[in-house]
C-alpha cells in the first residue's frame, strides 16, 4: 500500500507544526507509525517526577493542561495545549522523568508517535529540532529554577503558558533588593569604605525621602575623585553620576532589557513611585531571557571597520527568534529591531564620513539628517526588507548647491551600498538616499512635499505613502521634525489630499472571500498562498497613516498611531485595540515565517500558505483581516461624508 489508507488523518497531521515540513512520503511513513489513544477528562496522563513519556502525543481533539505541583499541594499552570498541539516532547528528549503533570481537561483523542521515530525526526530534521529544542530549553530552565525562586516567578505571571509567564516576569521579581545606598551629603571617603566593605562596585545615592538621585561607581572614584584631586571629605553628591536610569518595579523584564539596550547601561535603579526599591542588572534579566540581546548591541558598538558590520546583522535573528519563542509582543520586537537598525545605520554613517574624510572629500559641508522612510520610518523594520531612506541637508546658497549635493550623494551612495551588503535590499521605488530626488536640501524637500500634496492625483501615491512615515535617524538638526510640521501644515491647507490618499486603500483589500475564506493567489510561483505584507499589513498601515496625517500626529509607528488615535477619540478604544492586535499578530506571523525560512536555508518571502497554519492561527488571521476591512470601511465613510460636506 503506497498511499496511506486514512487520508484525513494524514491531512490533519500535515497541519501540525512542525510535521507540516515533512514531505508526503515521510509524512505517510510517520503517520503509519502512530497510534490513536483516548484519555478521558481528568486523567493524569503524566506525573511530574514519574516515568517519562514513551510517545509524542499530538492532540486531535480536546485539550490538556501542563502544570507543576506547588509547595501547598496546589498546582501552577504552565501551559494549555489544544487541538494540533503536542505534549510529551520535553520528557521524551530529556529522558529520565516527566517534568510536568499533564492532565486531560476534556476527553482527549491523541495521535501518539513512538519515541524512537520522534527522536529520529528530531535529530534529522532542522524544523523538528528548532521547534522542540526551544520549548525544551524554556521548560528546562523553568524547572531548574523551581526549587528556589522559580515558583514565585511562575506563579506571578498568570496562566497563559510558561513562555508567556517568562515574558511577563516583572522587574520586581528579578531585582536585587539589598542595595548599597547612601545620602547625598555622605562624605566620599565613607561611601568608598562602605563599598569596599560590601565588595560592590557602586553605591546608589538616595535622598532622605528614598528618591534615588545618582550613583557613584569605582570608575567615578578613580576619575572624578582621585584623578581630579577632589577632597575625599566632600559629599558624594559632588562626584556622583547622574541622571540615573530608573525603571518601575512593575515594568516587565523585557522593558528593562530594552531600556538597558537603549541607554547602554548594565544597571537600572528600580523605583516604586519615586522611591528606590532595588537594582536590576543585565545579568538578572538574562536569567529570564536566556540569550543576551544586550550583548548583541554591545558588539555592534565595538565595531570599527566596515567589514565587521556585514556580519553583525545576522546576530539579530537569534535575538528576534528568542523574543518570538518567549511569546514576546510585536512591539518589543519592533522596538528592538529598530534600535538595532538605527545603531547600525549610525555606525555606517560614522564610518563612511570618516572614510570620505580620509580620501580627501572633506567633512559634511553643512548639517544634515538621515531620514528613515517606509517601514524603517515607522520603526517597524523587524526584517531585512528593502531600504527606504532619504537625506536632508541645510539650505545652501545657489552657487554652492551642486557641490554640496554632490558630497551628500557620495555619502548616501556609500551608505546605501553598505546597508545593502548588510542585507537590506535596494528599494524598488528608488526611494533611496542616493537618488537625487531623495537627497535634497530642506527647501527642496518642502517643495517636493507641497507638490505631492497639491497634485495628489498625478503622482504615484502608493510609493509616496512611505514618504509620509519619515523619521530622522542621524539628526544634526531637527530637519525631520520641521519637515513633518511643514507636511501637517500643507495637509491642513489641502484636506482633499487625504481623501485621495484614503482612496488608495480600497484597491488593496484584505484577502477574505465572501464566506470569510482566505483568498489565495490563483497562479504563479505563490499559487495558493497569501502575501502577508501586501494583502495583510499594507492595507492596515495605509489606513492608519491617513488618519494619522489627518490628525497631524508626530508618532510614526502604526501601533503608536493607533494608540494616539484612540486617545483622541478618532477610533473607539476597543476598535483600536483590535486593530493593534491584528497588526501585531500579522507582524509576529511574518517574523516567524521569515525566521523559519532563513533557518531552513530558504530565501524568505512574505508569502504564506494558509493551510500551514493551525486552526487557532487561521482564525486569528481571519479576524485580523476582518478588522482591517472594517477600518477601511470606516475610512471610506469618513472621507465620503467629508467630501459631501
Amino acid at each position, binding site marked *: 500500500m503506497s498511499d496511506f489508507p*486514512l487520508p*484525513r488523518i494524514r491531512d490533519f497531521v500535515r497541519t501540525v507544526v512542525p510535521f507540516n515540513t515533512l514531505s508526503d512520503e515521510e509524512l505517510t511513513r510517520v503517520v503509519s507509525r*502512530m497510534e490513536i489513544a*483516548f484519555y478521558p477528562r481528568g486523567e493524569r496522563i503524566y506525573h511530574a517526577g514519574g516515568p517519562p513519556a514513551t510517545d509524542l502525543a499530538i492532540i486531535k481533539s480536546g485539550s490538556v493542561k501542563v502544570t507543576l505541583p506547588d509547595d501547598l499541594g496546589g498546582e501552577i499552570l504552565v501551559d494549555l495545549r489544544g487541538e494540533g498541539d503536542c505534549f510529551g516532547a520535553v520528557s521524551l528528549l530529556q529522558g529520565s522523568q516527566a517534568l510536568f503533570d499533564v492532565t486531560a481537561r476534556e*476527553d482527549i483523542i491523541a*495521535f501518539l508517535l513512538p519515541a524512537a521515530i520522534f527522536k529520529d525526526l528530531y535529530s534529522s530534521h532542522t524544523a523538528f529540532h528548532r521547534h522542540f529544542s526551544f520549548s525544551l530549553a524554556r521548560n528546562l530552565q523553568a524547572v531548574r529554577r523551581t526549587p528556589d525562586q522559580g515558583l514565585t516567578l511562575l506563579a506571578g505571571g498568570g496562566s497563559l503558558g510558561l513562555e508567556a509567564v517568562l515574558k511577563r516576569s516583572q522587574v520586581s521579581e528579578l531585582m536585587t533588593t539589598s542595595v548599597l545606598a547612601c545620602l547625598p551629603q555622605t562624605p566620599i571617603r565613607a561611601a568608598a569604605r562602605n563599598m569596599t566593605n560590601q565588595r560592590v562596585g557602586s553605591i546608589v545615592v538616595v535622598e532622605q525621602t528614598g528618591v534615588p538621585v545618582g550613583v557613584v561607581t569605582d570608575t567615578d572614584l578613580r576619575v572624578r575623585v582621585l584623578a581630579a584631586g577632589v577632597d575625599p571629605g566632600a559629599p558624594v553628591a559632588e562626584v556622583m553620576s547622574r541622571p540615573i536610569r530608573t525603571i518601575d518595579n512593575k515594568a516587565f523584564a523585557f522593558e528593562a532589557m530594552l531600556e538597558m539596550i537603549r541607554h547602554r547601561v548594565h544597571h537600572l535603579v528600580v523605583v516604586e513611585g519615586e522611591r528606590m526599591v532595588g537594582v536590576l542588572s543585565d545579568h538578572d534579566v538574562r536569567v529570564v531571557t536566556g540569550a543576551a540581546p544586550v550583548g548583541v548591541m554591545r558588539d555592534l558598538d565595538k565595531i570599527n571597520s566596515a567589514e565587521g558590520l556585514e556580519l553583525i546583522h545576522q546576530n539579530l535573528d537569534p535575538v528576534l527568534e528568542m523574543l518570538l519563542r518567549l511569546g514576546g509582543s510585536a512591539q518589543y520586537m519592533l522596538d528592538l529591531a529598530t534600535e538595532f537598525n538605527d545603531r547600525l545605520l549610525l555606525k555606517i554613517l560614522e564610518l563612511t564620513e570618516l572614510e570620505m574624510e580620509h580620501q580627501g572629500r572633506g567633512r559634511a559641508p553643512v548639517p544634515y539628517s538621515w531620514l528613515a522612510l517606509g517601514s524603517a520610518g515607522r520603526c517597524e523594520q523587524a526584517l531585512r526588507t528593502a531600504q527606504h531612506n532619504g537625506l536632508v541637508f541645510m539650505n545652501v546658497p545657489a552657487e554652492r548647491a551642486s557641490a554640496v549635493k554632490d558630497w551628500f550623494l557620495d555619502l548616501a551612495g556609500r551608505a546605501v551600498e553598505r546597508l545593502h551588503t548588510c542585507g537590506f535590499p535596494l528599494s524598488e521605488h528608488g526611494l533611496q538616499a542616493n537618488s537625487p530626488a531623495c537627497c535634497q536640501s530642506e527647501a527642496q524637500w518642502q517643495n517636493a512635499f507641497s507638490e505631492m500634496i497639491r497634485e495628489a492625483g498625478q503622482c504615484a501615491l502608493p510609493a509616496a505613502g512611505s514618504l509620509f512615515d519619515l523619521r530622522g535617524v542621524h539628526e544634526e538638526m531637527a530637519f525631520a521634525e520641521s519637515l513633518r510640521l511643514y507636511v501637517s501644515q500643507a495637509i491642513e491647507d489641502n484636506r482633499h489630499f487625504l481623501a485621495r490618499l484614503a482612496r488608495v486603500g480600497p484597491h488593496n483589500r484584505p484577502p477574505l472571500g465572501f464566506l470569510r475564506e482566505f483568498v489565495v493567489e490563483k497562479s504563479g510561483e505563490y499559487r495558493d498562498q497569501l502575501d502577508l505584507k501586501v494583502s495583510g499589513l499594507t492595507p492596515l498601515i495605509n489606513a492608519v497613516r491617513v488618519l494619522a496625517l489627518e490628525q497631524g500626529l508626530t508618532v510614526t509607528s502604526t501601533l503608536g498611531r493607533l494608540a494616539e488615535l484612540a486617545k483622541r477619540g478618532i477610533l473607539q478604544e476597543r476598535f483600536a485595540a483590535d486593530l493593534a492586535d491584528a497588526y501585531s499578530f500579522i507582524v509576529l506571523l511574518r517574523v516567524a515565517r521569515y525566521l523559519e525560512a532563513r533557518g531552513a536555508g530558504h530565501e524568505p518571502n512574505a508569502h504564506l500558505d494558509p493551510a500551514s497554519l493551525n486552526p487557532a492561527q487561521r482564525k486569528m488571521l481571519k479576524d485580523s483581516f476582518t478588522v482591517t476591512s472594517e477600518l477601511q470601511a470606516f475610512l471610506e465613510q469618513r472621507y465620503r461624508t467629508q467630501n459631501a460636506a
Partner: protein
Amino acid sequence: MNFALARMRNRLRRLRLKNRDLPPLVRQNLLALEQVHPEQPARSHRFVVLDLETTGLDPNRDRVVSVGALRMVEGRVRLGEVFDELVNPGRDIPVESIKVHAIVPDMIAHARPAGEVFEDFMEYVGTDVLVAHFAPFDLHFLNKIMKVRYGFSLQNLVLDTVEICRSTLLTPDPHGVYMDFKKCGLDALAERFGLEVPERHTALGDALATALILQRMFLHLEQTNRGTMGDLIKLGAVAL
C-alpha cells in the same frame, strides 16, 4: 454466551480435526480462544476491529466488496497495522449499495476475489479478538467463506460493539419499545462520544469509528468495575 462452553467446543473440534491436514494458518486459528483470558483486563488483549462493505443487506444473496480493519493493542489503535482492501464480489454492485459505500464497478475491476483476500485477512487477524459493529452480519460473511474453504467457522472470539453499548449505555428495554437499535448506530454513538469520524462509510473509516467507540467502552467498563475480558464477553460476545 458461556465462554467455558465455547472453549470446550473449541477443544473438541481440535480433537476431531487433529489428524486432518490443515494449513498452518488454520491450525493457528483453532488456537485463538487460548489467547483469551477472562480474568485479565480486557485492555491487555489484542483486538482487530473490522468492517465490511457489501453489495446489500441480504446475508444470503449479497457479497463483500471491501474489507477494512485496524488493530488495537493496549487500548491504542495502530495506524500502521491496517487492513484495507477492495474485494471483487463476482457479481454486479447494486446502485443502492453504491450510494452507501461509493465503490463503483471500475474500482473493483482489478480487485482480488473474496477467497484470496480472506486468506490474507485471516493471517492479519491471527488469534486476535474480532470486534465489529453489528458483528453477526460481518461474521456471517466471513464464516460463509471459512466454511466453504475449511468446513468450520472462524474460531476467534467475536465481540459486537452494538451489544456492548446496548447493555451498558442504555436503560434496560426488554420489549424494544424505545427503539434502542437506532441509538446504537455508528452515527448516533459517534455523536454521543463527540467523535469526528473521517472517511465514514468506507470499510476502514467505519472500522476506525468502531475502534474509537470500543476505546470509550473500555474506559466506561473499567470505571464501573467491569474491566475484565470476562465482563466484556458477558456483555457482547457473539455465539461461536
